[in-house]
């Protein structure tokens, strides 16, 4: 089914004095069709999302599997990071790493493997004329990687070096340690690799991890670009058809414990204090996501948000202040971030708290609500900048078990949001009495804010 969305909002903004008010400019209706993919399930379980796109002579492939660092064993945190690196760099059973990389780069193709938390991603971009060879190499790496010992060691050593360096950057400390402060440092979403947990990883672990995860029943493949559909499908069936395997059993992830309110402090020599305020957030696929998006826009998710106005525009306290309600499995994070000179840290925290409380006490004003809704609706055409992005997004809906019409109904759901709905999601998902605050910075300059906080260590 094709979703035809007509975006036409002629309603006015606050009237502007003088000549040529921007609101008086006539607006033609805009027709936008979300590019839809064809879904093809192969008998062995591989699911394809395919769409031709002849705009440019390119082919782009995104392979996804369920898996990722969320599912690592506790004794081997860092396994998934080492795994994706050694997988990509370790060559195949047929080709040495050097031969494999030369084959890819001689075509000016790009092939990367990454850990996306609860999925693994293999992405390929190649010139259309090389499509057959490029997909062949991708499949070879997917099905018959070698994880050569030399590259396994290199992947581990690189990861250890990154651990050594991870406290160089104050913003990285704030983000990482806030997750630990909210999820708990032993939950998969709050824990971090250590030198010893990485050193404990063996090549056998990686081979076993590959055998477990990489099966046709755990494979989704999005392919877009300048190709002949029939020839492409024939080649894909040839490459994947003879492959058999069951569905991997991924461990259940326990929900993180609800934490009580607390203020933490980590010492880091710096001019600014980096602040994080928040608590546990939402899982994927909540029914009132549209209302939460409206709330986020009003609160701190846009350049015109309340936080931006209060902290940046009005008082010049910070360059950056933002909020996020990113969903994750099993629970996302609600977080406000801000960095400001040490002397204004306390003022900024108080302003942030005040704004969170306000969300739970009163519905947004009519004008604020209209601004947020129109902005979300009218900017929907930018949600997927390319056909490939749109097709991958549809594939991810299936992987994450979300309704297939999520994007088709999005505009309608936003349009239906009322001021009371925004208040309701604020009361449902925000709890000013459970806020955790993390301050990273210079304790001497921060004074009693640091002295009265719980002292934490950057891991």
């Amino acid at each position, binding site marked *: 089914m094709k979703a035809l969305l007509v975006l036409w909002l002629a309603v006015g903004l606050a009237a502007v004095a003088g000549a040529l*008010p921007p609101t008086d400019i006539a607006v033609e209706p805009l027709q936008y069709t979300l590019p839809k993919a064809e879904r093809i399930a192969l008998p062995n379980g591989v699911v394809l999302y395919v769409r031709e796109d002849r705009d440019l*002579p390119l082919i782009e492939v995104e392979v996804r599997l369920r898996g990722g660092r969320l599912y690592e064993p506790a004794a081997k945190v860092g396994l998934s990071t080492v795994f994706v690196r050694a997988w990509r760099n370790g060559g195949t059973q047929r080709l040495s790493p050097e031969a494999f*990389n030369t084959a890819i780069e001689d075509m000016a193709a790009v092939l990367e493997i990454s850990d996306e938390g609860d999925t693994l991603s293999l992405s390929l971009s190649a010139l259309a004329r090389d499509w057959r060879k490029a997909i062949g190499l991708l499949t070879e790496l997917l099905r018959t990687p070698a994880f050569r010992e030399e590259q396994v060691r290199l992947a581990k050593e690189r990861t250890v070096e990154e651990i050594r360096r991870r406290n160089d950057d104050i913003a990285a400390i704030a983000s990482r340690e806030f997750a630990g402060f909210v999820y708990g440092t032993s939950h998969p979403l709050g824990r971090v690799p250590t030198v010893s947990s990485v050193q404990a990883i063996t090549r056998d672990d990686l081979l076993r991890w590959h055998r477990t995860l990489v099966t046709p029943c755990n494979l989704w493949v999005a392919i877009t670009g300048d190709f002949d559909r029939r020839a492409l499908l024939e080649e894909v069936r040839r490459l994947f058809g003879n492959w058999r395997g069951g569905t991997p059993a991924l461990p259940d992830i326990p929900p993180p414990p609800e934490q009580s309110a607390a203020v933490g402090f980590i010492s880091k020599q710096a001019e600014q204090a980096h602040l994080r305020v928040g608590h546990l957030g939402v899982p994927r696929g909540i029914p009132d996501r549209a209302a939460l998006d409206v709330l986020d826009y009003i609160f701190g998710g846009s350049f015109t948000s309340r936080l931006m106005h209060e902290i940046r525009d009005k008082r010049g306290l*910070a360059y950056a202040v933002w909020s996020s309600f990113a969903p994750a499995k099993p629970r996302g994070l609600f977080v406000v971030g801000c960095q400001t000179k040490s002397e204004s840290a306390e003022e900024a925290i108080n302003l942030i708290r005040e704004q969170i409380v306000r969300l739970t006490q009163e519905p947004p004003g009519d004008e604020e609500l209209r*601004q947020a809704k129109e902005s979300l609706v*009218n900017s*929907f055409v930018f949600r997927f900048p*390319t056909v490939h992005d749109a097709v991958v997004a549809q594939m991810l809906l299936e992987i994450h078990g979300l309704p297939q019409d999520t994007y088709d109904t999005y505009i309608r759901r936003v349009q239906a949001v009322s001021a009371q709905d925004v208040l309701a999601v604020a009361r449902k998902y925000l709890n000013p009495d459970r806020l955790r605050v993390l301050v990273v910075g*210079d304790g001497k300059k921060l004074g009693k804010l640091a002295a009265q906080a719980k002292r934490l260590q950057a891991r």
Partner: protein
Amino acid sequence: MMSRRTAAILLVLALLPMSVRAQLGFAERVVEHRLANGLRLLILPRKQSPTCAFYILHRVGGVDEENGRTGVTHLLEHMLFKGTTTIGTRDYEKEKPLWDEIERIYDQIEAERAKGDRADAERIAQLRQREQELLQQVSQWLIPQEYDRIFERAGSPGTNAWTSNDVTVFTVSVPANRLELAARMQADQRSNPVWRQFYQERDVVLEERRQSVDDSPEGALWEAFLATAFLVHPYRNPVIGWQSDVSRLRTADIDRFFRAFYAPNNTWLAVVGDVEPERVITVVEKYFANIPAQPLPERRIPEEPLQRGVRRVVVKMPANPQMLMGFHKPNAPHDDDVVFEVIRGIFTRGRTSRLYRELVEKQKIALSVAAYSAPGERYPNLFVIDAVPRHPHTVQELERAIWREIDRLRTQPVHEAELNRMRNWAEADLIRQLRSNEGMATQLLWADAVLGDWRELFRFVERVRKVTAQDVMRVARKYLHKDNCTIAVLETAPEAQR
């Protein structure tokens, strides 16, 4: 580059290599137009989605600033979002006298601050109290963030801007049916700006500086590196400005700079996306034609003298070591610059590149290594090698290994296979660049305003194709030697535990 929204100091990747095969037909689709006031308009219609990028470039950047007023270009860029005489205000005539009074208060505050240690803190506090009262009073006339609000409400994913050493660029994308709104808003932005809330925005930029330079190991090292590599050319100054310069900027500085450099005859406009070129021309004429042309100020920018010997600088911060090496070289579109683009690829592009294979994989002394041209392209610049050592290896070992690779380049011809790979990259890069309206608009503006002709983008692949192994050796010998090299090293200082 300093941007309004993101704090990262982007190491300017100079010429993103581009070319086009005839069948793409993009070069043929670019429409050029010049308004009578000198404004240059470039249009590229493409129908991938019902959106368009509407980007404006002013050929003014950090290099155009005078000593003592560094950072003025970037702060001006921020100020352009504070609204106009009709946007962001309920009644400009009512607010204006209040801003004038705040200005007079700052005359006194700055005079007091200029006394340094003898400044009267109590007097400053009183003046600030008075400023707060006036700000409270003026707030009744303001419509906060209205400029952004109008764009976001029309469906723009946001309007933004960035400043580099060379240029200032204002970026906005809108749904295709909002083309006229984009033109009307952007024309107003440069015809009737109001410098409201200037001193709050100056504080915002000082926070931006703390975040991206003072507290950032990369940022602090980068600043010291450029100030060492360039003795007199303004590429030595940070785009965000030196702290003491920014903290003393006044609205008069901004105003003077705006009037001098934002003239239509110093302005480029690119519209890329689902648009009809004739309609774009009509709309741009309608809103921009009445901005008068004006003579541009004479710019006397000092030339960097020949470097005579290696320069070294050390920055100590509580962070792990890293290093930068820079070599003076000509800027694009000089022929030698194209050769450097090839060298950059052979050195650090991908997993088959020489420095990656040698330093990261074989010797295992580096965590990462990258090469690029910086910090600008309007004047002779640097070929930069940026490397991070892996414990327990040191930056000294890393430097020795890099010199060995440079020697190899100076004494042995590169392989034909390596050159071929670079030719393929140049072609593929162009095609990938075309995936987004925003990328294409940026490239067109940059090539036309800085390189002198947008067609340079499409010539680039042919020029890469012609680079030979002999060219690489000649250029390596000419520029990649110690006497032309600046080395900046970040050394670990113990952290003050408090």
